[in-house]
């Protein structure tokens, strides 16, 4: 559970975004706002366009209509690779890590520093070491190649690479998918810690109901091309919308909620 410390400054404003892939309509008039300092989740069933929306926010895709503003700039600017100053203000952790397989882990983490700063090699090495230590990887992992790491370690390494520039905004695409419950919970804690320590705003795409209950401040549920609902988990759990109810009140949703309220009362 996080103490919401968000100010009322929007860092991401998605307004009236529509997306089409050929005849398939993915989004219709989707609008949402992410405030500075919050952990915001985009949830929804498989194929509802969560990852597509994320890719549009970070400028990898252009929506068919509507506009997206990211840290006060139009996210379409990101398609010019020289939008450097904007690129270094956010970090992205892709679903499968997307670590460069021809580089060691430490080299992977160092890429943004090498490309965007003029720091000395020694200092880059130290900052990289700090970030690898922050995400809790063991000391000998820096010299390993991605293929020599387990899935969980690769995820951590990708997170280290995403936060190496101290971004204001951190995007996580399904950060806990495919991790065992212990590691997934550890990952949630890690995201919260980093958020607190580095003052991040976190936007994540996730299916993980436990994460949604534990670390997320606000959730937007996508479905049928629209934002079905947006708010805190408590608000959404109390929603009457059948689609949202199905999503949060399936057997797993109830278990996660029980688990969460049990833990919360235990803590009190």
């Amino acid at each position, binding site marked *: 559970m996080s103490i919401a410390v968000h100010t009322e400054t929007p860092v991401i404003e998605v307004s009236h975004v529509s997306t089409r892939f050929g005849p398939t309509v993915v989004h219709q008039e989707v609008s949402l706002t992410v405030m500075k300092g919050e952990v915001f989740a985009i949830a929804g069933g498989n194929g509802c366009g969560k990852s597509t929306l994320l890719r549009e926010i970070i400028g990898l895709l252009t929506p068919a209509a509507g506009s997206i503003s990211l840290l006060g700039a139009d996210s379409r600017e990101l398609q010019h690779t020289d939008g450097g*100053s904007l690129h*270094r*203000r956010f970090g992205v952790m892709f679903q499968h890590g997307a670590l460069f*397989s*021809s580089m060691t882990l*430490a080299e992977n983490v160092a890429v943004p*520093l090498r490309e*965007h*700063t*003029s*720091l*000395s090699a020694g*200092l880059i*090495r*130290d*900052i*990289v*070491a*700090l*970030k*690898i*230590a*922050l995400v809790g990887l063991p*000391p*000998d992992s*820096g*010299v390993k*190649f*991605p*293929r020599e790491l387990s899935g969980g370690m690769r995820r951590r390494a990708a997170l280290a690479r995403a936060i190496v*520039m*101290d*971004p*204001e905004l951190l995007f996580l695409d399904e950060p806990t998918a495919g991790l065992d419950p212990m590691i997934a919970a550890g990952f949630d804690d890690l995201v919260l810690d980093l958020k607190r*320590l*580095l*003052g991040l705003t976190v936007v994540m795409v996730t299916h993980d109901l436990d994460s949604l209950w534990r670390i997320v401040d606000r959730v937007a549920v996508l479905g049928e091309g629209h934002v079905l609902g947006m708010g805190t988990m408590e608000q959404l759990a109390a929603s009457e919308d059948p689609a949202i109810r199905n999503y949060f009140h399936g057997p797993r949703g109830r278990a996660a909620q029980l688990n969460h309220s049990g833990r919360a009362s235990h803590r009190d």
Partner: protein
Amino acid sequence: MDLPHTTETRGQAAAVTFVEGRTLRCRGSWTMSDVGPVERALRVMEWPAGGALRFEGSGIQALDTGGAVVLSQAVMEARRRGCEVTVEGLQSEHAQLMNLVSVHWDAMMAHVAARPKGTARLQSIIRNVISRFLCGLEFIGETAMAFLRVCSSPGHLRWRSALNSLRLDGVNALPITGLLTFLIGVVIAYQGAEQLRKFGTNIFIVDLVGISLLREIAPLIAAILIAGRSGSAYAAHIGTMKVTEELDALRTFGLSPTELLVLPRMLALVVALPLLTVYADVLGVFGGMLIAANQLNVSFTAFLSRFEEAVALRHFLIGVGKAPFFAVIIALVGCYQGFQIRGGVDDVGRHTTMSVVQSIFLVIIFDALCSIMLNWWDL
């Protein structure tokens, strides 16, 4: 917490100055984009030997982890020189960040210290070479066993897959192989024509073109083309199947990837490459024939009648006879490299390249050995 990173919020450049000998005043924006000069300045700083030293941090406008690392390094360095260091005046969030760095300092140093040792690297290289050699032997053995199994019960061979491979690697390679050997025939005839005309021995163009093409060049060109076309495709295909765990899926059904993927391709190539070689022979000689008629006034009929007496059948047989061996080399190397792919995407590219380079290398080595042996036996 406010962490300016951008040019818009970039303040005064980071700076350090000594005031009153015992106080180091830190000012400006200590962020990754601006802290570089200060880091260099601090590295050559002359620290007072011992005594109290005060870091005055109230002038720091912005601090991120990069700046915090630089500041922590300076503090550590001064401590190492025996100074009693105090850091004062930091804004509370900056102090938190410094705290974060100091909490993780030991872990960080452990990361920095972790480098592979030279001997360990050498050992792993030697182990790699040995294991690769053993893997190669194992692969050849496995394929041979699968081949024997198929020989004893031919129903086990995937005929459909073999025929498909025959079409993809044989029939579809006809245009490019034909065109290339035709052009090679033309080139050899042109080069020979110059020399032969000088001596007035025009008719020997037949010997030149016929023997060199039939015996060496056509089989080699066909083999090299197939190595580039099919060997690489085998490596990439099998490698991708390995990356996507399709090979493991096959094994769980009790199917042998060697029998399913390697044997049909190998047998298809063993059939296709000799046929391609014959086809290449015909087009290459035809190319030579055209130039002979054009440049040396050797008519088609004269060329063909000379061809019959000058070019012994054994040249043709030696050329075509080498082709199945080339085919086995190409198929084995291509498939073997495919099975060797372990990691992700860049491995696929690397092993595909290696399959082409190695199979062409081995084909030429084998060809050279053949030439030497056949020379001993006066063939």
